């Protein structure tokens, strides 16, 4: 389904290099440090396991170090780093496993630190729902998951996502709609809607 769309982003490898006219250059390592939490959030949003996330972020760091010095605009640097991170995630998307933690384990961990842990039967029902969404997100095409994570986990708007993914904002919005409906359908089709 989305393979062709995914290559739209992946094919433009120049995105992993600073743009020739006025790209981020200077202080990219500094920018990486400042943006490190946001970048980790992007990688987490794509569902990579911690060890794989480390590898991806390390690659982004190296790209930042290669970019050297020169960028005066922190926003531009942040966008460039986000773009490199997204591209790295997309390149790794099909090679790595994602969202691998079992739903039951996730909920048990959360219940352990929750002030009001749910009852066992609530926990079981929620685990079933969570597992359905987890599998749907594992199967979701990268061209849909990337904007979904950027929008709803990294709190970016469609315009920002379109700049990072080099897509028209309208395409981003339609992919967001498609991804949301796929996840919702997964719950509804299983009769698991609330």
């Amino acid at each position, binding site marked *: 389904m989305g393979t062709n769309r995914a290559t739209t982003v992946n094919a433009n490898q120049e995105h992993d290099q600073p743009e020739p006219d006025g790209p981020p250059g*200077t*202080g990219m*390592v*500094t920018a*990486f*440090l*400042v943006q*490190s*939490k946001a970048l*980790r*959030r992007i*990688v*987490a*949003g794509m*569902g*990579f*396991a*911690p*060890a*794989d*996330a*480390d*590898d991806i*972020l*390390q*690659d982004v*760091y*190296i790209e930042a*170090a290669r970019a050297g*010095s020169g960028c005066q605009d922190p926003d531009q640097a942040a966008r460039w780093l986000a773009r490199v991170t997204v591209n790295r995630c997309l390149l*790794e998307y099909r*090679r*790595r496993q994602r*969202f691998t*933690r079992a739903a039951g384990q*996730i*909920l048990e961990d*959360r219940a352990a630190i929750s002030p009001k842990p749910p009852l066992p039967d609530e926990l079981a029902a929620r685990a079933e*729902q*969570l597992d359905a*969404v*987890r599998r*749907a*997100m594992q199967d979701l095409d990268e061209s849909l998951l990337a904007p*979904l*994570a950027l929008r*709803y*986990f990294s709190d970016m708007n469609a315009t920002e996502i379109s700049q990072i993914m080099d897509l028209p904002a309208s395409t981003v919005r339609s992919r*967001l*709609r498609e991804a*949301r*409906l796929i*996840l*919702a*359908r*997964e*719950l*509804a089709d299983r009769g698991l*809607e*609330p």
Partner: protein
Amino acid sequence: MSQYSCLEIADLLVDFADDNLATAQRQAVAAHLADCPDCRRTLAALQQSLSLAQTLWEDAEGQIESRRGNSPVLPTRQPRNHGERNATLAFQFRRRVVLLAPVAIAAGLVLLLIGHRFWKPAITPHQPDMARKDASVQPLQPAGPQVPLISAVAWGTPPDNYEDPQTALTRIELDVDRAAQAAMVLAATDTCLADQPGCEDLAKDQYAFVATTYAGTEAATKARQRLESISERRTLQ
């Protein structure tokens, strides 16, 4: 009666759930929802699935954070199990070529030194001349007791801290890798501080991270010195 069909509503439901519709459209969708239980179910599923997705994302982020010890800097590369290592071998190789080419040369030198240390006793300690003679001058052993070219006696019993070469190689590789990471984080922090003197608090966290996570490396020592110097400077101020 609603002005939209269910098909049309499906296109608007996500924006409705995100509160991204203009007032007129919002009212129209709300009117349709009031009459249509199927679309109400879809809306509920949209909201519920997003909430569950947030749970998954937060969990993934928490896992990454906990692996990194909540440090704000670089990812820490931990030794992996064999399955993980094999799965990412090509990726690791490319990255390591970039990162570790210079340190690999240094590791080679260290190995040479270790090899020198092990081999030297074989020809020097008790019967140096004989050992050399056995190896080079007497290719054919005469009748009588055989003298091994490199005898077990020459090696002696392994010292208490003996490591087999493969283990030593792995340990050295990890040590070098770790030292390189520490140096990289330290350098990045120095650069950050030089570029933005206002980042001193962030830099302090970074130095503390290097000092604790990479304890025993040269970079950790330097990080501790920088921490002390920051503390002293602040005390004076």
